[in-house]
């Protein structure tokens, strides 16, 4: 029991070190972030979206899925005919657009975070195996990854969704089935470079087993790259989800998703512009903030990544 704990501690120790380092540098990090107004703005907005998503039931003024048909197509409050009851207006079903956008943030963020996390997990694990052990396994996985890379991302996802049918789980599946490849390539390349460095050699000489070397020596050193890539990928994943929902292949009505809200409002663009435009703005702002934040993160954490 104690031996196990020690072994675990041994594995976790380098992570701990790094986090301690980060903690110590936390102030530094914030100062650097402060030096990049765009990244800071991104961070604040992302945080705001996360808060909105977390407290959706508390802050949304109406039920996002239930509308009153008699109150359909009310314009936003600043337009003529707007009502303070519905700040951003209502859609054709008489549902409050503000509440739908608030709840839509949940779907977008959840899909973004989950699909990126799962992709990163799978991609890094396979990349580590490939990059460290090389050989036939590497060839097999790499060729498979190349095969997947040959498909354009969205076309692949559309095909998968058409095959699997709509729904949240299928959406995640379709996004991660191809999403892991970029993480795989990053992790594989990084580990191939790291495995010949002195500290890995040293660990090997001390008698560390290969899995321990991968997990506790190499991974902490490439973790920041994966974190940065993950942040940057999140934007694309959110756009992919919105695109699929726009095409009617993602989240099904009446669950509010920004992409399907844009699709709903498309036909009403000439007469009721707010139905499509406001969720579109939400997608724009969220993805923009994530990308601004991600790029700031990259500049701070890993200047080497600048050339992708």
């Amino acid at each position, binding site marked *: 029991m104690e031996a196990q704990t020690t072994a675990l501690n041994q594995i976790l120790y380098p992570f701990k070190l790094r986090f301690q380092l980060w903690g110590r540098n936390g102030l530094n990090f914030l100062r650097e972030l402060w030096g990049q107004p765009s990244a800071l703005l991104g961070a604040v907005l992302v945080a705001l979206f996360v808060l909105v998503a977390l407290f959706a039931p508390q802050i949304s003024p109406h039920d996002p899925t239930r509308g009153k048909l008699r109150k*359909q197509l009310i*314009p936003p409050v600043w337009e*003529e005919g707007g009502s303070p009851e519905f700040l951003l207006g209502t859609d054709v*079903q008489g549902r409050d657009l503000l509440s739908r956008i608030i709840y839509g943030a949940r779907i977008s963020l959840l899909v973004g975070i989950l699909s990126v996390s799962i992709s990163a997990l799978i991609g890094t694990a396979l990349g580590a195996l490939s990059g460290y052990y090389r050989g036939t396994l590497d060839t097999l996985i790499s060729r498979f990854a190349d095969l997947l890379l040959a498909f354009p991302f969205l076309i692949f996802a559309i095909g998968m969704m058409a095959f699997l049918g709509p729904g949240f789980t299928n959406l995640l599946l379709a996004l991660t089935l191809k999403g892991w490849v970029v993480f795989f390539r990053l992790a594989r390349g990084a580990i191939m470079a790291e495995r010949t460095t002195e500290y890995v050699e040293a660990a090997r000489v001390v008698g560390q087993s290969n899995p321990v070397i991968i997990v506790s020596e190499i991974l902490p050193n490439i973790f920041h790259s994966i974190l940065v890539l993950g942040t940057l990928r999140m934007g694309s994943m959110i*756009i992919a989800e919105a695109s699929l929902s726009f095409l009617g292949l993602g989240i099904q*009505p009446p669950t509010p998703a920004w992409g399907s809200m844009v699709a709903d409002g498309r*036909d009403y663009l000439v007469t*009721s512009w707010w139905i499509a*435009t406001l969720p579109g703005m939400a997608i724009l702002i969220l*993805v923009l903030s994530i990308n601004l934040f991600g790029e700031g993160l990259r500049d701070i954490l890993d200047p080497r990544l600048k050339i992708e």
Partner: protein
Amino acid sequence: MFGNRKLAGLTIFLLITAMILAGCPAPTPVVIEVEKEVIVEKTVIETVVVEKEVAVEVVVTATPVVGPQKGGTLVIGLSADIATLDPADYRETTTETVLRNMFDGLVTRTSDGRVLLELAESATLVDETTWEFVLKKGVTFHNGEALTAEDVKFTFDRIISDNGIDYPEPHTSPRKGLISPLESVEIVDDYTVRLHLSAPFPVAMQMLVHQQIVPKDYFEEVGNEGFVKAPVGCGPFKFVEGSLSEQIVMERFDDYYGGADELPPVGPPPLDRVIFKILPEASTRVAALRTGEVNIIQKVPAHMIPLLATDPNVRLVSGPSTRPAWMEMNVNKPPFDDLRVRLAMNYAVDADTILETVLGGLGIVIPGSLSPYNNFADPTLEPYGYDADKALEMLAEAGWTDSDGDGFLDKEGEKFAFVVDVRPANKDRAEAVAGQLQELGIDASVRVWGDYSVLKPLMLDGERTAYVGDWGDSAFDPVGHFEAKWHSRVEGTGNGRGNFSGYSNPRVDELIEAGEVEPDVEKRHELYDEAQQIVYEAVPAVFLFLPDIVEACTVNTQKWTVAADGRLNMHDVWLSP
């Protein structure tokens, strides 16, 4: 970087959209005034549908132009793709709308539903099961070939024989079911044919409207595939070029015999060219009409009517359609295998409100399975009407109550949840129905199916739960409609080909079968009244409404009106300068 470019593109797109929208005027009280005008216009148009003479007068007074102007190209914005150019190989309205400008049939129908002779000079019922048609002489196809009895026989043989169609692979014509009692066609002489039926078929003339004649010699020469690529008929326009998903271009057939004698003016059409353009998106169609890029558009969405009504260059035309809408419920699967639950659904859905809001009030609520304009609709039926308390009461009786207080009804620990299937065109009304059921604590969600050919077999096999859809009765007769929706499904026949609720009642089957062959109108009324009564009481569907057809044209489009069966007949239409 890729992400950045995409981002920049998105930003620019949204900014431009925002700018355009900022320039759009907000709806003003003027629009509301105009909405009243719409209602006035609508009443006028309803008169149009009932009495054609009145319509002509209205058009003439509206524009002081004397006679039809020759020439010009007219563009029509269609709301859906065309399935094929083979007049024997489709079963939906858009294709028929296009093809019947190139192909004529033995008989045709006016926009208000009367049947007139077209290629036939006379039609006689020789005995109960034999129709004799004498063809007009001197009718030629677009390739110069003369129309004879051979062509008529060839056309019908292709439709009624098994695997009569060779392209893209051998299959039986989907139009066979429209004339299922037809057994054989006999050539009496060059210009006389007899149609032999297996049983009396009182709606023969109404159903024959949907069968268009193709030239035998040309067809045999080029084959089925060649014919689909370069179709030849004897209609007012001949095929020039086009693709099924973009546009079909036709030009005037100068040797046109003139069509139905009773539909003057008779002769070649005034227009040089007609282009059927496929514009599935409503806002695109409306924009194209307002810029004058197209002359006529199908399916004007309700919320755009005020916008078009204020446009001095646009005329709105509407009239009752032939497509009653319901939410069909699978009667063989829980929760809808319980009559009380189905009845409760009829009380739970407020069809009036959906009609008034989502459909802009254009249409009427229907009490049962048939359109009230159907010649055999039972006038004694009354809509169940919205009554939420009654609905909840009946659901409680059936065991559905909110016992765990989560806001949703449940029974034996299971939540009342189901999925409403719908095609993209009907999404708004399906969501409205689902929304109203949500209000009562029923967790109804909507699934939009882009591909009907995937959904339809699933529904026919009883694998789905509910479907918000519609079914056309362009013959204004239960035949073609009633047996498709409410007869038990019989493989290999037309019976039950659209029975998505899986409804089956031996008495209804019997009544439908009797109604199809009963020549006496009074007796047919009795048969169909009883059948409607039974279906009304068994509620295999939530009976919703009969929406109006709303179309629009540019003001210079003359002699065109909306047809109840959705047909766009361009023969007499002309463009004033």
